[in-house]
Structure formats: C-alpha cells, structure tokens
C-alpha cells in the first residue's frame, strides 16, 4: 500500500470550500506597452488559501505572463512583498479570508522602487541602502579562541531587529521614501540597529554617523507605516526612535 494521499480525502468531503474571488492586478510590461493597466481575474479558491496561491492559480491556469517573485511561500524568504488592498504585505502570509473576498482583491507592486514588470520592482536601491549602513559585525583586537561571551540580556537587546528578512515591505510603505528615494529607509535603519545595539560590536559610532546624514534617521516622520507593514512583527518605528535617541545621548 502506498502512503495515504490527501486529495482522496478532500474529494470525499461534501461541501466545496471554494468561492469565486476577483483579483484586480496592476499589470505592466514595457515589451508590450508603456502604460500600466488593471486587469481582473476571477478564480475559484478556498478562502483559507494564501494570496500567493491565488496568483499561482492565475499564472498556472489562466495567464502565464503574470510575473512576480516568490520562493519559500511561508513568510521567511522575503521575495513576495506586494501592495494588497492598498497595504504592504507578503502574498504568502496573507490569507484570502482575511481580506473580504466579497470585493475584488487589488494587488500592486510595492511603491517607491521602479517597476520592471507586473509585480517585480528594482530591488537594487533598497539593497544599496542596506549595504551602506555597514551591516556586519565589526570588532577590534585579537579574536578569542572560543565564542565571544554575551549575556542573555545583551542578546535580547537587539533580538527584534534580527528578524528582518529584507522584504522591503517597510521601506516601500514609507511616505518619506516615496518622495525621496535617497532616504535610507526603515529596513536599512533596522539593520543598523541590529549591530549598534549588539554588545559585541565596536562600530556603533560609525554607523550612527552614517545615519546622522541628511538622508538618515532624522527624515523619519514617525508615521508607523513601517511597523504596520512588517510581516515579521518587528517594531520598526521603535527601532528608529532608539537610533535617534542613541544619536542624541551617544549611549547604546
């Protein structure tokens, strides 16, 4: 006997879980047209499925030209940040049932980065801002033979900002970033925070100087969009505030 297959069980259950949902997707392909357009797709889907499952149904069964990035499909890789019903989210962490499927679900690329095709944007400026904050541990002197010691409390101090998956949901939800792409943006500051508050690191001052720049932390207007957008639940605005405070007090 082979391993039990679940589909059989599914077929035997009586009421169909499927409902009809309309996806209203922002399409753009410069190989076809200079203009972006909205396109509607009505599909049958179980509301317990993810928005990403809906996008796959469209791509696989209806229109193979629909283009988006995705990989892990459970909120860890950070590939599929998009604007869903006007809010930045990961398509793989957003269930249909949580979106009022009675109405069309709008799906657009994240804002503030150049759209290249459909839901794909140019991530390079985002990663450049990340690289600019020296996102790596800097230490001086001789390396110990064993691990560096760190108390559980010191480790806890920067725990929240280690969760970042670089999906850009925060940065591309920030009105300051929309207006001025030179702003480092929340994600870069979060990753600077992760090292500034790491007791093992010795380049906090340098990172603070980088963020003291006119395009640095002071541009933040505390709108909390970033915190709302973060699919990892990082308190992004709080982290930015802590960096601002560290710049004033020079204590971290």
């Amino acid at each position, binding site marked *: 006997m*082979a391993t*039990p297959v679940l589909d059989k069980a599914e077929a035997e259950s009586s009421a169909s879980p499927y409902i009809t949902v309309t996806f209203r997707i922002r399409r753009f392909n410069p190989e076809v047209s200079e203009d972006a357009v909205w396109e509607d797709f009505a599909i049958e889907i179980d509301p317990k499925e993810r928005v990403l499952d809906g996008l796959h149904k469209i791509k696989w069964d209806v229109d193979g030209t629909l283009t988006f990035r995705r990989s892990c499909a*459970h909120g860890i890789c950070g590939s599929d940040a998009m604007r869903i019903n006007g809010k930045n989210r990961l398509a793989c962490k957003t269930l249909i049932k949580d979106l009022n499927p009675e109405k069309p679900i709008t799906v657009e690329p994240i804002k503030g980065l150049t759209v290249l095709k459909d839901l794909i944007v140019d991530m390079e400026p985002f990663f450049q801002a990340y690289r600019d904050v020296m996102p790596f541990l800097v230490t001086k002197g001789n390396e110990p033979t064993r691990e560096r010691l760190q108390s559980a409390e010191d480790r806890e101090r920067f725990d929240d900002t280690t969760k970042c998956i670089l999906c850009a949901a925060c940065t591309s939800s920030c009105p300051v970033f929309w207006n001025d792409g030179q702003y480092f943006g929340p994600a870069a500051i979060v990753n600077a925070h992760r090292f500034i508050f790491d007791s093992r690191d010795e380049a906090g001052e340098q990172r603070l100087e980088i963020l003291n720049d006119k395009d640095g932390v002071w541009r933040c207007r505390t709108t909390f969009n970033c915190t709302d957008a973060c699919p990892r639940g990082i308190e992004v605005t709080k982290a930015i505030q802590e960096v601002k405070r560290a710049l004033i007090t020079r204590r971290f």
Partner: protein
Amino acid sequence: MKIHKYDTVIVGAGGAGMRAAIEATKRSRTAVLTKLYPTRSHTGAAQGGMAAALANVEEDNWEWHTFDTIKGGDYLVDQDAAEILAKEAIDAVLDLEKMGLPFNRTPNGTIDQRRFGGHSRNHGEAPVRRSCYAADRTGHMILQTLYQNCVKEGVEFFNEFYVLDQLITEVDGVKKSAGVVAYELATGEIHVFQAKSVIYASGGTGKFFKVTSNAHTLTGDGQAACYRRGLPLEDMEFFQFHPTGIWRMGILLTEGARGEGGILRNKDGERFMEKYAPVMKDLASRDVVSRSIYTEIREGRGCGPEGDHVYLDLTHLPPEQLDAKLPDITEFARTYLGIEPYTDPIPIQPTAHYAMGGIPTNVQGEVLLDNTTVVPGLYAAGEVACVSVHGANRLGTNSLLDINVFGKRSGIAAAEYSASNDYVDLPEDPASLVEAQVERLREATGNERVADIRRELQETMDANVMVFRTEQTIKTAVEKIGELRARYLNVSIQDKGRRFNTDLLEAIELGNLLDLAEVMAVSALARKESRGGHYREDYPNRDDVNFMRHTMAYREVGDDGSESIRLDYKPVVQTRYQPMERKY
C-alpha cells in the same frame, strides 16, 4: 551572448554558496551566480539549529556526534566524511559566532544548546544538548550572517542569473570543468562564464513532491545540469520526510519543538512514539518518526474526520518558553491554521524535506566522474552534493552544519585550484545547448501545460515514492514519469517575451524535476532493501550483504538518441564503526 571570465564561479547563494564565497573571494576573483537574491535562499527556512559538540551545557564530544551521524544515516554514511563533519563542526559554529551570528546564550554567556532528534550522549544512551540555535530561526540567522559577511568581503553577485548548463572540455583525455552557461532573468540574455573552477551550491530537489517543506524554487537545477553532461548522481533514492509538516501545506515545524518537550499524539491522545522508540521517543531519527506517524494513520489512529494526520502537542509547555524558543513556528500555526498552540495541538503530517543524495563529491568538495576519478575544477557543496555525510537519513541540524563545513572546504579548495591552474578552453559554441533549449520553449506551440505536468508529477511522487514504497508503487511512478517526460516535449508557454520570463523558467525547472524524479524512482526500484529514508514494504529489512553501497546513476544516450539510466554502485567508506541494528 556575453562571455565573462572569473577564477572561481559559485552557483547558488544559500548557506553553502555564500560560505564558499567568503573563502573564495579572499583567495581568487570570484563571481556568485544566483537565481534568487542572496537572502531568499531556503537555508533561511531552517529552524532548529546547527549541531556541534561544544559541550557548553553538558558533557559531549565530536566522536559521539560522529557515531550518531553514522547511525542516523543507517550506516550508508562515508565514515571519514562524518568524522570531518563532526570534528570541524565546533570551529564552524565558532566561525559563525565571530562573524556575528546572534546565537541564544546560556546564563554564563556561552552559546546555548538544545536537544535534537538522533543526537545522543555516549552512543545512544540518552538525548544530548548539541544543537546550537538562534530561537527557531537559526537558518535565517545563518543566511543573514553569511550575506552580511559577503557584503563585508565585497563578494560579487550576479542576482537572478539562472545557470542552465555545465561546460566540460576534454584535455589530454581528462574531462575538466570549463565554466557554466547562465540565463539572465531580467533581460533573457545568455551569458557564458569561463572559470578555472566552478562550485555548485544550488540546493535541493524537493519540488517534485506535492506536500513538501521546500520552496517553489528548489528544482534541482545544479544536479540536472551536471547529470545531463554525463556526471553521476549518488544515492538519489534517499529522500528525507520530515515528521512535522503543517497538515496538507507541508510547512516545516522544527524538530526543536520536540527538543523543547513537544509530544506527538494520535487521535486517542496516546504518546505513540513510546512504542516505536522506547529510549529516544519523540526524538528518534526522522525516518523512524515519519514511518511511525504513517503507521498510526494507516492503522486507523490518525486524527480529524479523515484520520489523515496526527498532533504535535505543545500545550503543556509554558507560553513563555514557546515565545522565547519557538516564536516562528507558533506563529505559522496561528497564521496558516488559525490554531493557538498554547492551548490546542497542531495537526501535522510528514513533509518531503531533504535530498540525502546528489552530485557525488569527495571530502574536499571535488565532484566525481565515477567511483574514484575527480573532474578537475568542479566542486559541489550543501544539499546539491552527496559527500556522503548523511547516508540514508540525515540527522536534524546536520544540514546547517554540512553547508558550513563543506561550503568552507570547497570554497578554499576551488580557489586554491584556481590559483594554480589555467583556464580550460571553452567548448566550441559553448552556449548552443542553452540557446536551443530556450528558443525551443519560446517557440513551442504544443498543447501541454507546465502546471498540469508538474501537478501530476507531484501527485505520483507523493502517492508512490514517499515514506512507504513497494516494487509496484515505484514501477507505477517510473511509468508515469516516462509518460510525463514524453508529454513534456509537447509543452508550450504563454509568455514569449525576454523580460523576466518566469513562465519560461518554470518550464525549464519542470524539465529538471522530471529528469531527477526518474533517477530517484529508478534508483529506488533497484534498491531491494529498507534503509533510512528508503523503506520498501516488500523488503522491510536492511540488507548489508547486497546493498551496503552507494547508488551511482548515469544518464546514457544511445546511438539513436534514446535516453536511459545506468546504475552502478560505489563502496561505503567504513573506518571504526561496524554496522549494527538501529534502535532508538
């Protein structure tokens, strides 16, 4: 077509690729070609930890770790490689800590460690705390830390470059690596990378199963590229089914949940693992636990109206412990199942998780052309490779270890090779195979769809070559795969453009999956015994007389162009551990 020249080219930017890149970039001009942005790799989905006998919290040593790895792999492990893995584990963890990895800490500030399946003190006496971890996102932290250090070292990445072909040139009768051919997703342009050495670190093949913890992008691209050029694939019949995937979705719930005290229960609430593994119980090795779960289901003790799953029970653990040690997986249960793990058990089923087999290498990461000859200039590390440190079943936390130990080794070895060898001439018209493949798919007008064939492949693999296999089910799979391969020739795509054509890439990925699924099934059919992750109901015992050997599968092309798979076998390296009956 563009031609690039680098000393060392690394294919893939997950844990193994970036660990190799940090070493190779210091020693040679290195390019990393990756089909995803570097931090998108599935290394980031690994949760529970990385094994190393640091002995920070209780007595432990690398010799015990070596034994556990060999026993866990049901004695198909090459013991010299396992010894290296366990011995170098300690430095691999310390290297990561020095690079900045935020491990959880003990009260005295050292790296904390927890229990994990199959890891024991003194050769199986009792579970041991060997897994070094960062909450339940250890893979995420490894991936981030390695990328951070790649930024620090100035590693050169070619993002969204998809390697489709391995170039091999024969020089004085010796087959050598000449470089790779890549497809640039953004533009559709084809690039030839001439390189003195190439390292494959492109990950696993899990997407030929339906219920899997693997990412959509894990389609065995590196294995397929090498296999099509006549290189063997080792032990492909051995695939790991992780016991605790989210019911129907397959999303991984770490074994660390059981390491923290979580218990598996059937519909009667019984802790059934006590029956199957009296000593290690819920922390027996993964193949044993997955078989036990399906035995419960098949004997009518599964949960839910269909009786098709069991429960992972965490409700007896304090919420603070779940929040501190298992925050991500408890959130997965809330997000995807609407279940509160503080108060309710989580429905789980085994999920296709990890390929033990892959491109055969020696302990320096050098790729083998046959049982003994290496391909000069060609290396592989991580899940794409088969060293073999995992044998017939990998222990939890040994994959994050594998990518670090053998990523580093192959990075150093490849860069040293590049430093002391010249470029090999590219074959004539090096991009021709890829150009033909891409053009054929772009222009194809057949009536088969990629999604249909992939769905049928996944369904046949789940039904026929999963946790339990028989001659009959495997033959069914082989036949079905053959039919799907024939239909694949008739596949067409809708997107004919050059810009970000993911429709085209999915078609190419499906071709890779079909080739590798066939190798897996044919290898499984020939292995008439049960060992580790390969369980044959018609041959339920391990057969060391006939099958204590690695499978080596080769693609053969006849004079008439017909393809077939030739199986050969390679001896297992045994040093100090004689095979014993495996009990947990």
